[in-house]
């Protein structure tokens, strides 16, 4: 069975999914992802030339509405679950270098 390379698991976790994994978990995921990906190869057997994709089951296109201001959450409500806030803003660790 094809194991996924350790570097590949770490790339997906660190750079794309933003997850910090323990060494044990990286090892487990190499195996699990490999096993599941192999299972997916079953689909390659099916001929899907000329078959459109279905990303959505309803026969509808864009739903538009008037661009009218309506009721929305108050600033207080919107900030009510913030782990950290200051003067009406969400506060996060420093992003830019000084």
């Amino acid at each position: 069975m094809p194991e996924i390379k350790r570097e590949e698991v770490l790339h997906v976790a660190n750079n794309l999914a933003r997850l910090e994994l323990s060494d044990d978990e990286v090892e487990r995921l190499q195996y699990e992802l490999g096993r599941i990906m192999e299972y997916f190869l079953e689909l390659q057997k099916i001929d899907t030339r000329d078959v459109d994709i279905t990303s959505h089951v309803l026969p509808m296109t864009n739903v538009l509405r008037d661009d009218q201001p309506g009721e929305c959450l108050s600033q207080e409500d919107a900030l009510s679950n913030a782990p950290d806030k200051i003067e009406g803003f969400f506060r996060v660790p420093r992003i830019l270098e000084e």
Partner: protein
Amino acid sequence: MEICELTAHELAGRLQAREVSAEEATQACLDRIAETDAELGAYLTVTADLALEQARAVDSRRRAGEALPAVAGVPVAIKDVLCTRGVRTTCASRILENFVPPYDAAAVERCNEAGLPMIGKTNMDEFAMGSSTENSAFKVTRNPRAIDRVPGGSSGGSAAAVAGNEAFWALGSDTGGSIRQPASLCGLVGIKPTYGRVSRYGLIAYASSLDQVGPLTKDVRDAALLLGVIAGHDGRDSTSADLPVPDYVAELEKGVQGLKAGVPAQLLGQGIDPAVRDCVLAAVDRLVALGLEVEETQMPHIDYSLPVYYILAPAEAASNLARYDGVRYGHRTAKPVSDIYDMFAKTRSEGFGPEVRLRIMLGTYALSAGYYDAYYLKALRVRTLIKRNFDEAWQKYDVLLSPTSPTVAFKVGEKADDPLQMKLADICTIPINLAGIPAASVPCGEVDGLPVGLQIMGRPFQEDVILRVAYACEQTMSG
């Protein structure tokens, strides 16, 4: 019979006749919870004060002679995946352990408008990812029909609450079987409505092209009533269908004479416990005796449903769960961090459980450069083929019939360590979400004293036809 053992429509009748008050009915549920929920583990949060307050409000409106919805005063349990204003909503995840939504989900609003007191928020697999409710970050829920067994999942808390008479009925959500499979395992009726039938506004997203909200109830009439409460158009969900909602209860007794059903061979074969298959086929025979015309049919692409689902659902989940970054709401790491990306990674790794992390990794991997075409687009094309199988079936049949779950309820811990084995639990229910059609599970017999569910699938927006067949099946069970 104790009050809490009544069906919702029986209670509604007694409330209307003023033989019992909404407050008494609510208190009866709360008493039952106090008695049995330490063992069952159905609830994450019990909202006793809120429920009693809502019940008293209904009682006083009734005393004042106000015209009330028919079901006003019948307490409901809500899966903890639906946002409830001012009431903690966790999705059974550490990352939302202290989240208190500032608004109600649309389905919750509808329940409020119908005067249903909310008893509490029910346990589930974390972010609705699982089939046993063992993946909750907080506790394991058990099956009231056999306490050493799982209630199914991911809406296992809602199913256990109703089956254990800790609620008269409940709302769940269904992405690959999460309403129907627990209904089947707990001996209840469950409906996954047509995609778009019920608003997803305020439903915490797992896989947005598959998720639907629906009822878990003690009988078919209750399912028709509760679906009627929550169905309908909502401008805040752009995939919500702007179609009239039929009177589902009025359709129930129309019978199955003149209806034609197909039984897909692909849903009776490999992986289905032979005893479950026999039980389901016996129920089909009873429906035939009532006038349902039935034949076996072939839907070859259904066999590919599991690999399609386990690409698409994690891919959508990986995108949806990107929002949990410790900035606007939810858990944020308390550890020292070197920069904001470090904060994201520590927060997410502390907050998400192992199954959620696995699915995020799986989905991110399938969407990443070099794999997107081979996995994600390929799965979307095969999804089209699966949907076509159903479109073709509707040319010939009004409904399709199958088992809901390939087995009866399994023991707690039995499949917890084998992810692929666990995924087979949804083998009959997943194709329905991929095609976006409605389907119900209705009790149709027992194997080894444990409930078996018949799955009834129907054309888009024909929940009424499904309910007619379900009602007929239920009639063959009583007495």
